[in-house]
């Protein structure tokens, strides 16, 4: 499903929100929620390294001679994400999620005296993320049917190089928030249908990273959710 398709679904569902309940919607305790949608991750660097030769200079620590410099970046990418939650209380949901995307790792070459600076096309990764977290619904509303929440969690990242030739694994942690909008239900015993938008700051540790540093990047997701 593309991002455009998902937005259309959200618009269609929004337009059918005719059944307005008098009681403001909220999560219901001990109910499960299933969400599916699209997610977008921002780009982040994965390391800059110089190709170094030993310079021919007298001394125990000769200065390095740079053949070229390579700065690699994982490009921003849209993907698919699904989440399953369980409302422990009316305000607290614990949930697990999974996401898939195919970002590219591009590399910018510079400082090569024989070649102009350039950005290489890069390789395509297959990226899987699995996480567990909690969503805390805040005690106020936006309008009649939207309620904000904050969320946080962590999980496992699996990145496969092009051609599935090599697997790199890491951890992800996130914190953020969003808004739930009930199109239908959300009160009484009726099943609920709605849309949800999340914005998160994501920290990635390990996985593909040539400097072995923790990276931070934004993640934005849009879901359709069903509460049973």
């Amino acid at each position: 499903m593309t991002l455009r398709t998902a937005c259309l679904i959200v618009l269609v569902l929004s337009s059918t929100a005719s059944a307005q309940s008098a009681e403001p919607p909220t999560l219901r305790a001990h109910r499960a929620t299933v969400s599916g949608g699209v997610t977008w991750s921002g780009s982040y660097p994965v390391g800059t390294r110089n190709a170094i030769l030993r310079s021919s200079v007298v001394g125990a620590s000769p200065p390095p001679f740079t053949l070229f410099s390579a700065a690699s970046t994982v490009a921003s990418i849209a993907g698919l994400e699904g989440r399953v939650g369980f409302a422990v209380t009316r305000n607290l949901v614990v949930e697990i999620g999974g996401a898939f995307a195919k970002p590219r790792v591009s590399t910018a070459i510079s400082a090569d005296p024989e070649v102009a600076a350039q950005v290489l096309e890069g390789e395509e990764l297959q990226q899987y993320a699995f996480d567990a977290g909690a969503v805390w619904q805040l005690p106020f509303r936006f309008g009649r049917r939207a309620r904000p929440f904050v969320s946080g969690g962590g999980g496992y990242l699996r990145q496969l190089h092009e051609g599935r030739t090599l697997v790199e694994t890491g951890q992800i942690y996130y914190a953020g928030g969003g808004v739930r909008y009930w199109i239908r239900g959300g009160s009484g015993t009726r099943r609920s249908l709605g849309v949800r938008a999340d914005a998160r700051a994501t920290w990635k540790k390990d996985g593909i990273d040539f400097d072995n540093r923790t990276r931070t990047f934004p993640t934005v997701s849009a879901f359709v959710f069903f509460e049973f």
Partner: protein
Amino acid sequence: MKRVWFAIVAIILSSQSPAQAYLKLGAAIGGQVIDVSWRQPVRYFVSDRDGTGATAADLRGAISRATATWQAVPSATVRFEFLGATSVAPGGADGRTTLGFLDRPDLDRVLGSTSFLIDTTNGAIVEADVFFNTRFTWSVSPQGEAGRVDLESVVLHELGHLLGLGHSALGETERTGTGGRRVLASGAVMFPIAMTAGAIADRVLQPDDIAGISDLYPAAGQVESTGGITGRVTKNGQGLLGAHVVAFNPESGALVGNFSLNMSGEFAMVRLAPGPYLLRVEPLDDAEIDSFFSTAIDTDFRVTYASRMVVAPKGGSSASIEIKVPPK
């Protein structure tokens, strides 16, 4: 058993014809080129002749340190065995491997050189002799001495040849006022031109050297725990012979080089740490060609990077990548 004196491989102070990548020495046997290597351990003598600025004892010390450096490569299995001092000078086909100082005024640019006796039925090295030219002033100072050639660095290089490694082209040179070439920087102990007299950096092996020796004498499990990269260099749709391909690991910073070695432009690198690599293809300098390719090679192309990283998978080899180079 047929035996034949094999190529002389030298390290030089400055040159008009340097360079080749991490390559193994080979012998043509039954229509195929096979690696030249020892059936270990390498048993050797050291000549008792003193050199200029260094005694025979100094040489034995330098050889002891350099053999320890090669033996310490964890991904390779290399074993040396010192048999004692000898009054015999290196160079004769006497069945004994001998290293020592030798006065070679006719080779006034050559610091040291290695020659071999090869069993041409199987590529086994039967004997190898190494000389270090007394025309140069040597140093064994731990910190190095300006104006003197570091003996341990040159011993380490020649022992690489003795083990079966060729020269590496991983380095940058510039022309000197006398028409020769001077090394600016190198990425391998096996680079054919020595560093400035007094430099001691080449007492330590580099990734290119380690990949080469690990290919020749792989330690147990090396084949399974390392990876390879294969590909083709083409120009105008045709394979290109003699292109220098450099693989760069952006995680470790390791540089390993090799050449496209046939008319299809195919190249292969093995014993690489698994992971993604950037590939840079460059032509040999005009001055380097004759020493390493007996046939004509194409140097009329621009330095080019592969459009994407190539992954050396653990225990296997990458799918072949084509790198198209444009003419100059």
